[in-house]
């Protein structure tokens, strides 16, 4: 599993040395005695994020703790953030892939398909873990899979194209143990197959529960599901 290492820690120490030597940073944007131009762009970005009132890092978040942890990068985040776009080198990709594969855990009793009708609504729902001015209250609604944001599934609703179309997923692939495991892994941590993919790690991150994953998989595989019409 990836360890959450605050990259800002070293920088914070660096900044506090400067501040200790002069007056403190007055408010957002006021640079005080902190010389932005003496930092690398990476250092300045971390400073703006964690130290210069750039983001509302004290807001409470659904998973417990504060919004600060939403901006702290783990090893995958760091490895896969390439300034200007593109992918990191092959050795880095391999390390990301290996760590992702190791992060996947399976439900007791093996991978099961749940209720495709519940899965249909979960696949459509973009609800969950949003914060800021309008935080999602998980007590009111289940956390959704956000699948349609990026994927076309059943064609009765419009899906996005950031990810590949999944229309007819089960119909064209069957329901062998191997393909069920592949789909489960892809939802749980897709970096195991596509290191530095744009797709979230819905299992590793704790975004979706095992039940939600089973329902969404049923929506993908059940012959009765409109995905497979």
């Amino acid at each position, binding site marked *: 599993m990836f360890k959450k290492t605050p990259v800002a820690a070293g920088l914070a120490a660096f900044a506090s040395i400067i501040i200790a030597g002069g007056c403190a940073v007055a408010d*957002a*944007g*006021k*640079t005080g005695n902190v010389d*932005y*131009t003496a*930092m690398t*762009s*990476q250092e*300045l*970005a971390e400073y*703006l*994020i964690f130290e*210069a*009132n*750039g*983001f*509302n*890092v004290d*807001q409470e978040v659904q*998973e417990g703790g504060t*919004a*600060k942890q*939403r*901006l*702290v*990068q783990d090893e*995958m*985040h760091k490895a*896969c*953030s*390439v*300034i*200007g*776009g593109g992918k990191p080198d092959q050795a880095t990709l391999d390390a990301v892939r290996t760590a992702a594969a190791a992060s996947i855990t399976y439900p007791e009793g093996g991978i099961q398909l749940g209720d495709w009708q519940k899965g249909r609504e979960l696949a459509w729902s973009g609800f969950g*873990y*949003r*914060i*800021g*001015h*309008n935080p999602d209250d998980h007590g009111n609604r289940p956390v959704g899979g*956000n699948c*349609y*944001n*990026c994927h076309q599934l059943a064609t009765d609703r*419009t*899906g*996005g*194209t*950031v990810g590949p179309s999944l229309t007819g997923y089960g119909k064209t692939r069957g329901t062998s143990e191997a393909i069920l495991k592949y789909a489960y892994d892809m939802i749980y941590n897709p970096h195991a197959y596509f290191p530095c993919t*744009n797709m*979230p*790690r819905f299992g590793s*991150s704790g*975004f979706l529960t095992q039940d939600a994953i089973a329902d969404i998989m049923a929506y993908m595989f059940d012959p009765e599901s409109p995905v497979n019409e």
Partner: protein
Amino acid sequence: MFRKALLALPVALALGATANAQKAPEDVLQGLIDSIDSSYLTQSEMNLMMMPDSPALWLIDDGKDLFHEARGPNNVSLETCDFGKGPGVLEGAFVEFPRFFEDTGRVMDFESRLVHCMKTIQGFTDDDPAIRTKHGNAADITKLQTYVASLSNGHAWNPPMDHPMEQAMRDAGEVIFYRRAGTMDFSCSTCHAATGKRIRASVLPNSNVPEEWTKAVSWPAFRVGHDNVRSAQHRVGECYWQMRHAEPVWGGTGMTAIISYWNDRARGQPAILPDMKR
């Protein structure tokens, strides 16, 4: 093809005659549509049709009155406000933000500079509704911003990079743009580094295509789905909400860095001000 060629002709003539700034926002957008094949620019035929009657156009008039009216505890207008091109110079000022200001010692986005002038010149404080109310058509800040922005319609984005602080903020913004984090592992580039991709039905603008990106960063815009004019800060805030990241502070350093990078990516392309968006 033929229609496109016909439409492109007067645009080309207008550009040659430096009449670009006098064009309506929909004409600026049409010029971009004619210049590049972009499903982002053309995605809403309805918005293209509605632009000549955009509710944002009313805010220009309201904002103009507010700008030139003696207001606030000091009972003076904003006519002496320096938006970077000298006191009272508004023409083309908006597309040269964010910029470094000697009097504050920091890089400011347009909205921060406007608030600064309202405080220092007119004497408003954070508690006054003129400054406190930041959202919606009725907000003074929305009206004033829409007015000043409209005086940069058709002007090419040209945020200055002469001061080292301007370059530093732009470069930090670039890092932030590509910096993955959060519950969903997203960065800005997750959605804005490819052409023609959609989130559900909405075509996403590509930050690597300036002709597309200029529309993406052309705020204030009448946001049809919100029935209100919104600013660049609203757009950034909404993206961060969707990304599940921490919210950028209004007028804060993170917001300024991101907008510095944004506007730089649209450099050289004409701004659509005010724009209309879904």
